[in-house]
């Protein structure tokens, strides 16, 4: 009786199985030991009563090993040997195990489902937006835009538009360009000068095109001056000192900072404030929002930058995606509430749905 007890306590058990969700290139060997060991030796054989060859020595602290040196379709048997203070301990043989191909990674099913839901929501509303007009709430900073441009016109001073320091493949720059189109329309209509310095060559050509089209649209093609939309330099600090120079020389009455910003946000907002300009900022860079909020008159917070671009352009695609994102947010809220309730009633299964297998 005592002996049996000892074996049960001081045992080492091994288990081998086809590694889930792989292409059939490995077998996972896992073990449990009740006794501290200094090293583990993994042995393998193709026959249960054959010769077991060592294939790997595992480090302490690990309790599994992926055997990738296998032939797919071959059956394997495993056994492990642990070195302990009391000598070698050998486990029972486990097997046969065979590796096989999986076509779908079931460990990532929850990711798959989440993506499908989000895609469906966005695409559904995009297609609906093409048929009917979707509502987007007013965004306070945008109402201020007209007023700010009007003020510059009254004072006879220019408007400065900074589209961020990233290139046109960044979503924020894309959003900024559709806001620029509206700003350009307004300034062109009033005949107010508009400066757009950029930090990327491609952003410059896009901005030129956007502004030119806006001028034509309001019937003022003569207003457009290509030289006011200039590429300064790719370098962050070089760009900022260039923009600062424009602010100090031309003294614009209204500054827009919309797009991607890093450390330069503070320098821009501080200089702009010192020249007495009305400042409207917007970025989805959470790190830079505090400076804009504290030093600018109006700030588009995070996702509002995208919403503003949808609101102004009234393009079905943008409006529809925004609506789809809103549905996503509603789903999130319900999921959070459901999760909290599941916690209260002690339903762990709901919690586990959100874990993806490593």
């Amino acid at each position, binding site marked *: 009786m005592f002996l049996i007890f000892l074996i049960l306590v001081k045992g080492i058990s091994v288990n081998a199985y086809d590694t889930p969700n792989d292409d059939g290139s490995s077998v996972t060997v896992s073990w449990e030991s009740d006794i501290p060991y200094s090293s583990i030796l993994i042995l393998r054989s193709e026959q249960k009563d054959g010769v077991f060859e060592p294939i790997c020595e595992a480090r*302490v602290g690990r309790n599994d090993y*992926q055997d990738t040196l296998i032939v797919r379709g071959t059956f394997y048997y495993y056994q492990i040997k642990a070195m302990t203070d009391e000598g070698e301990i050998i486990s029972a043989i486990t097997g046969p195990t065979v590796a096989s191909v999986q076509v779908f990674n079931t460990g990532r099913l929850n990711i798959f489902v989440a993506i499908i839901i989000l895609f469906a929501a966005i695409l559904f509303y995009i297609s609906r937006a093409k048929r009917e007009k979707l509502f987007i709430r007013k965004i306070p900073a945008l109402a201020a835009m007209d007023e700010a441009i009007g003020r510059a016109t009254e004072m006879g001073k220019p408007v400065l538009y900074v589209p961020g320091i990233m290139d046109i493949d960044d979503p924020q720059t894309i959003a900024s360009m559709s806001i620029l189109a509206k700003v350009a329309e307004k300034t062109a209509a009033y005949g107010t000068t508009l400066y757009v310095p950029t930090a990327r060559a491609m952003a410059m050509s896009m901005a030129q095109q956007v502004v030119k089209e806006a001028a034509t649209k309001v019937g003022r093609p003569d207003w457009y001056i290509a030289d006011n939309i200039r590429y300064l330099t790719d370098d962050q600090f070089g760009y900022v000192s260039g923009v600062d120079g424009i602010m100090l020389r031309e003294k614009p009455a209204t500054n827009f900072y919309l797009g991607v910003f890093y450390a330069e946000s503070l320098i821009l907002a501080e200089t702009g404030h010192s020249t007495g300009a009305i400042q409207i900022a917007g970025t989805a860079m959470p790190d830079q929002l505090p400076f804009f909020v504290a030093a600018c008159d109006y700030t588009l917070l995070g996702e509002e930058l995208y919403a503003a671009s949808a609101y102004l352009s009234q393009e079905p695609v943008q409006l529809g995606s925004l609506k789809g994102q809103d549905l996503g947010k509603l789903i999130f809220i319900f999921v959070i509430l459901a999760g909290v309730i599941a916690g209260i009633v002690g339903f762990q299964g709901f919690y586990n749905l959100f874990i993806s297998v490593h």
Partner: protein
Amino acid sequence: MHFFDRIAKIDRRIIFLLIGLAVIIPLIAPLGLPVDITAPVKSVYDRIEAMPEGSIVVVSIDYDPGSEAELYPATLAFLDHCFRKNHKVYMMGLWAPGITLGNIAFQEIAPKYNKEYGIDYINVGYKPGGAVMLLTLGRNVADVVATDYQGLPIDSFPLGRMVKNSRDMDLVMTFSAGDPGILHWIIYFNARFGTPIAGATTAISAPRQYPYLSSGQLLGLLGGLKGAAEYETLVGRVDRATAGMDSQSIAHVVIVLFIIMGNIILVWEHRRKK
């Protein structure tokens, strides 16, 4: 001219001067304010203490000279702790300039504990490619790491041979100044492979990490120079981070006074308009 008017129009160079003095004077004449320890720093320290000797710590130097002031002292304190506990340090970097900085740190700490390159620590160099690279690294280290930073074959070093994939990494410690950095380690590496991630970040990116701390995706966090000073205190090495804390304190007080002064002027201007 009213007093407040004159203050409001003060030359900003005077403000610059005051800030300069607030930093310089306490460095020359320290006050010796004690450093308090916060929970996210303690949990990094505790993990290093708790891991068995010989554990492999991946140290990723994801910053450049622009953030050296904040992150280099943390790097020193952390390496000191790892070597003292006889852990093995596997260094890499997501930012090119980080590798040089990491090597300078090794030169400063390793001799103190008689640690040998290739056995106790190694530097596998700059690994570009951000997310894509991390996903490959976790799956199969050899796909990304063929040599160490000097171009010597990785298999010629005992420590190089020990790290095959994410399962051989007991902890990843990133010293991160931005992008790519800590966020990549969390949402790509930890999510895909489950390896515990801890980090030291610039103070700017520290608040952004709190959601990940509370979700457990991030094990612990050293925020800015203060985080480094806390770690120095825990490890018992009084160095430049701790020395800087007095300046940090005084400069903060000066800036807070500026904010208060600015707002008193705002209130005063409002009153006068009425």
